[in-house]
């Protein structure tokens, strides 16, 4: 996904994270602008080497990354103190303080993407503390890396041979398997097959959602990461708007025709007002991709796309792929979306949906927290349904989704300790905190969570409905832009905007995808 970290922020701190990220972008842009416009302009004319934009960007980014890391580390150290000696009162803004008795211990560096002030960071710090106080040999040192910086930095660090001991990823090819294939990731399968100390009697991997385990299992059958949470995408709707305009409410078993009827009904009943059936911000590409992914999932099965990546007998230019693109264009023709969707971002669409200017949005489980940044009232009425069903569909229950995972680098000096931390992090107690405090769906199966009745009553309806949908899924289709190799991802994201803008025919889309797959097969030596 283009900006997974944004998606996972299920809590209201999103606005702050965004503010920070914007501030980061602003800082980077300012430097880039300065350097490019000033130095670049001058040097370009001089007889020696002219400015090369690529170098510019790299230099600036590296500097930004260093700064971020330094700052984060400094913060951690300021707040920390040996538990046995002194207690420092937590600063008013943070609820959890890291306590790291560093003397005589070796660090385990962990790269995470959670900004200061998010509930996820509270969660990480709580369990980092717990791990640190129990472990005599090593201590966990969490380092914040900005989302976009991470995407570049992890590749650089991996190729340079100095990655962090534990690194964030989203499963799939782009940020996990291609490193695993180069032998850069520690294989945790032996631990997965034994029981975890927190849930005796069951192999560790069987306590986690199978759909998520599949996303961190490479084709060699080895497991390379531990999924931490579940995020998935589906059709979200605003219950209050449906009631206000007296429109037929969607249900989990709705068909495609019923879905189209609802769109017509909305257009009829809200005619003349600036309220649209579906919010869409497609400039980022991955939002329109949700439609394509779900159509393909329904028509060909959830794992088809990933299977075809390794199986030369399967193809992407089938009639189902053509149909998927055609259905998207059909929705555009019906006026289902807000105007200008191809120039808007996902956040713009979230704003429309949050402000009650759209009845529905095909988006992920993070929408609740994201929408709260724009409107305090409306998100309370958000609800979720399964993707509309087709007659004769191949797959009725599976989902499109993913979420954060942590993997251990091969160069890590204490892999057993790192595994122990990950076991703690997905233990029932920790996953309960994820659900209750961060309001993010756990990766641990619900039966192992050990929720009391009281706790269950506290879970909001939206989250319950989400868990209901998730419990039916046996396979979760990883986002194409994370699960597939860059050459295919590029073809997909390049096409999405064109499909919705109707500058590309459905047939061209299928052919483009297939030729990208052919290129990949050739690269990987499969064909």
């Amino acid at each position: 996904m283009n900006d997974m970290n944004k998606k996972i922020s299920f809590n209201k701190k999103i606005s702050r994270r965004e503010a920070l990220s914007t501030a980061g972008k602003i800082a980077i842009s300012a430097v880039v602008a300065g350097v490019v416009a000033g130095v670049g302009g001058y040097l370009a004319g001089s007889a020696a080497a002219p400015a090369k934009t690529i170098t510019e960007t790299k230099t600036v980014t590296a500097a930004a990354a260093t700064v971020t890391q330094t700052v984060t580390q400094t913060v951690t150290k300021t707040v920390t103190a040996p538990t046995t000696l002194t207690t420092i009162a937590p600063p008013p803004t943070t609820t959890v303080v890291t306590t790291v008795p560093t003397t005589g211990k070796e660090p385990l560096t962990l790269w995470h993407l959670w900004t200061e002030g998010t509930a996820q960071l509270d969660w990480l710090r709580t369990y980092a503390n717990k791990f640190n106080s129990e472990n005599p040999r090593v201590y966990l040192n969490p380092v914040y890396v900005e989302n976009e910086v991470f995407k570049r930095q992890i590749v650089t660090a991996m190729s340079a041979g100095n990655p962090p001991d534990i690194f964030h990823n989203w499963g799939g090819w782009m940020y996990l398997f291609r490193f695993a294939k180069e032998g850069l990731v520690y294989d945790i399968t032996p631990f997965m097959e034994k029981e975890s100390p927190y849930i005796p009697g069951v192999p560790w991997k069987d306590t986690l959602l199978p759909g998520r385990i599949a996303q961190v299992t490479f084709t060699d059958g080895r497991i390379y990461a531990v999924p931490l949470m579940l995020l998935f995408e589906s059709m979200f709707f605003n219950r209050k708007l449906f009631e206000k305009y007296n429109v037929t409410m969607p249900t989990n078993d709705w068909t495609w025709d019923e879905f189209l009827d609802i769109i017509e009904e909305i257009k009829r009943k809200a005619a003349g007002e600036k309220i649209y059936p579906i919010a869409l911000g497609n400039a980022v590409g991955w939002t329109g991709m949700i439609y394509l992914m779900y159509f393909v999932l329904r028509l060909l099965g959830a794992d088809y796309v990933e299977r075809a990546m390794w199986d030369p007998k399967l193809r992407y230019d089938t009639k189902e792929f053509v149909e998927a693109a055609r259905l998207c264009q059909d929705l555009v023709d019906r006026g289902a979306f807000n105007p200008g969707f191809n120039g808007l971002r996902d956040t713009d669409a979230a704003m429309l949906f949050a402000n009650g200017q759209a009845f529905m949005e095909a988006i992920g489980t993070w929408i609740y927290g994201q929408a709260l940044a724009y409107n305090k009232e409306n998100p309370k009425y958000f609800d979720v349904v399964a993707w509309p069903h087709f007659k004769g569909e191949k797959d009725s229950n599976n989902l499109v989704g993913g979420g954060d995972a942590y993997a251990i680098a091969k160069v890590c000096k204490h892999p057993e300790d790192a595994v122990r931390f990950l076991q703690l992090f997905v233990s029932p107690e920790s996953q309960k905190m994820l659900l209750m405090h961060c309001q993010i769906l756990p990766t641990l199966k619900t039966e192992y969570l050990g929720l009391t009745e009281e706790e269950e009553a506290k879970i909001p309806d939206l989250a319950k409905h989400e868990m209901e949908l998730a419990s039916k899924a046996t396979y979760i289709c990883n986002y194409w832009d994370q699960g597939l190799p860059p050459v295919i991802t590029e073809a997909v994201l390049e096409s999405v905007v064109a499909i919705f803008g109707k500058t590309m025919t459905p047939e061209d889309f299928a052919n483009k995808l297939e030729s990208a797959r052919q290129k990949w097969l050739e690269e990987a030596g499969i064909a």
Partner: protein
Amino acid sequence: MRSKNLSFFITVILPFLAPAFIFFLIFRFIPALSAFYVSLFKWDGIGKMTFVGIQNWINIFSDKVFWISFRNNIYLAIASVGFEITVGLLLAYIIFIEAGIKGKTFFRTAFFNPMIFIPAAVALLWKLIYFPVGGPLNEILSSLGIQPVDWLGDPSITVWSIILVVVWQWTGWYFILSLTGMSAIPTEIIESAIIDGASRWRLLTNVIIPIMKSNLFLQITLATTGSLMYFDLFWIMAEAGGPGHSAEVLSTWLYKQTFMWSNVGYSQAMAAFLTIVTFLVGYYWIRQVARA
């Protein structure tokens, strides 16, 4: 005499130059040369580098998006030279020559104002102005009875919507450069021209512009090379390069190829191409500055 000069160069000039030169060598010259080297390989950034000869160069020249991006850069350069510099010069001239204008400082500040904003903030501000659902610009248009325009979503106008913002932001920069250039002209020259009865237009075209020639050539150098390497507003306002890459520029396409699609060899060929073009354009105009 000659050997004395040489020893002076070695003992005095060179040690003073060395730090800057070494810095320049490491961060500018070597990366630029390495782009040419990497452009001969197929490389994803982490795996093995495979030698492919000039295949990457053939690929960029047969890539439609590359040409769209290059075209957009040229549009931007034309808009910069044709509009930013011209308007900046005229505004500066009015402020310079009209003694009667009240609040000169205010206008100077106002014209330069867009320049002090960070490009990212400018991009976000203009994205709000262009917002298709209830955005101010479209509201004004529809109140005048004009059909709303999809400023950033319509492939045929996205690039112009962004160029408009660039022009809005950078005109003030060339305005200030022209104004400083004019202020450096000795008053006697201007006064004698006025006494000789030169009109304002003739004063500008026959006296001020010829005197300011090197200043203007410098502005053109900055504008053209800057346009070729421009990144910020295009990146933020048209994140995915705009619909169908209609608002892609070379630097955004290069960035995507490197960091998103891991086609490092390909992108380095593009970087090397950009280096050559910027070098040639910059060299030509710097020569003009030197001659003027």
